């Protein structure tokens, strides 16, 4: 989403304005970061009805703790971290923990695994020749929440590994490894769906 080419104040300026009492400027901060926050909330929270309140809570937390923002990270990354932690807290409360979910480890082949072609090449060639966008949303939705989130942050929000590591408090190597598994699982899921439809 590209913003209009009008003057756009820096994150630091906006934060200072809000801290000096110009609370209305916080709306600009929300509009700048809502893509990232929405991505995290939609991917991590399975119940759509809970998402609006959670998104609101995330921004109220950010507002209350704004004085603690030190400009060491990007403002969006800082708010993304609040979003991720708020969602994790919600999942813990609802006993929907991220790690150790069934199917999460099963999807892994590992970087050192033999390079087998799991799907017959002629099938594979047919799958990805089609328009993927039609099936993509449904296939992403089948992934575990953490995988969905990593795919959303990396491929749709176009964050770097370092930024994702900052948001999720995971080591960068772990982010890379999970993202590898997530993409592999997504590709296999798409292949499986097409194969099932072909039968």
């Amino acid at each position, binding site marked *: *989403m*590209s*913003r*209009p080419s009008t003057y756009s104040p820096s994150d630091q300026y906006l934060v200072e304005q809000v801290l000096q009492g110009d*609370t*209305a*400027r*916080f*709306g*600009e901060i*929300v*509009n700048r970061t*809502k*893509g990232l*926050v*929405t*991505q995290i909330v*939609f*991917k991590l929270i399975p119940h*759509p009805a809970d*998402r*609006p309140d959670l*998104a*609101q809570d995330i*921004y*109220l937390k950010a*507002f209350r703790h704004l004085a603690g923002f030190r400009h060491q990270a990007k403002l969006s990354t800082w708010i993304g971290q609040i979003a991720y932690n708020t969602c994790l807290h919600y999942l813990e409360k609802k006993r929907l923990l991220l790690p150790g979910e069934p199917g999460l480890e099963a999807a892994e*082949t590992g*970087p*050192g*695994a*033999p*390079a*087998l*072609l799991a799907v017959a*090449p002629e099938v*594979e*060639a047919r*799958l*990805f020749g089609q328009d*993927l*966008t039609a099936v*993509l*949303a449904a296939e*992403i*939705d089948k992934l575990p929440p953490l995988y969905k989130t990593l*795919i*959303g942050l990396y*491929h*749709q929000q*176009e964050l770097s590994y370092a930024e994702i590591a900052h948001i999720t408090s995971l080591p960068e190597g772990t982010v890379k490894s999970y993202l*590898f598994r997530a*993409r*592999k699982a*997504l*590709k296999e899921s*798409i292949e499986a769906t097409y194969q099932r439809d072909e039968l």
Partner: protein
Amino acid sequence: MNTPHLSEQQAQQWAENASSADATLAAHVWACPACQRRVADYQALFSALKTAPQPAFDFNLAARVAGQLPGVTRAFPWAFIALGGLGLAFALAVVASGWAALRQLFQAASAGAVALGTVLAVSVVLAYGLEMLFRHRRQTEIFLSLPRELQHDGAQPV
């Protein structure tokens, strides 16, 4: 072709950045249709992910948050009403105490000093009221005006 096929990880890396691969791998991929296809599949997947609709709420998140911020939309009307009430109470008190009291006041101090004081007091109250009004208008405008691109945000939740 003696080198093994690309691993999944290598295929992903290649799809993202072909220049990161070493010469042996490159030689293999150029000669191996299976690996080329696998890389192409990942490239298609990454490209589709990039252009897929992003999740979006069907309401104005900034306005919703604004309604909950301390001291913005909620606190202001009460402050305004309190200020108006005070002004009204003051006016009533003046009327109730009658012109006699006012005349006494004017007699006690020099007429010029009282007039100056009254003008100053009215100016301060007026300026404060106007400042609050403009500030409230500006806040409401910023919060409630959607950026144009938001109107096209009708993306389906992913």
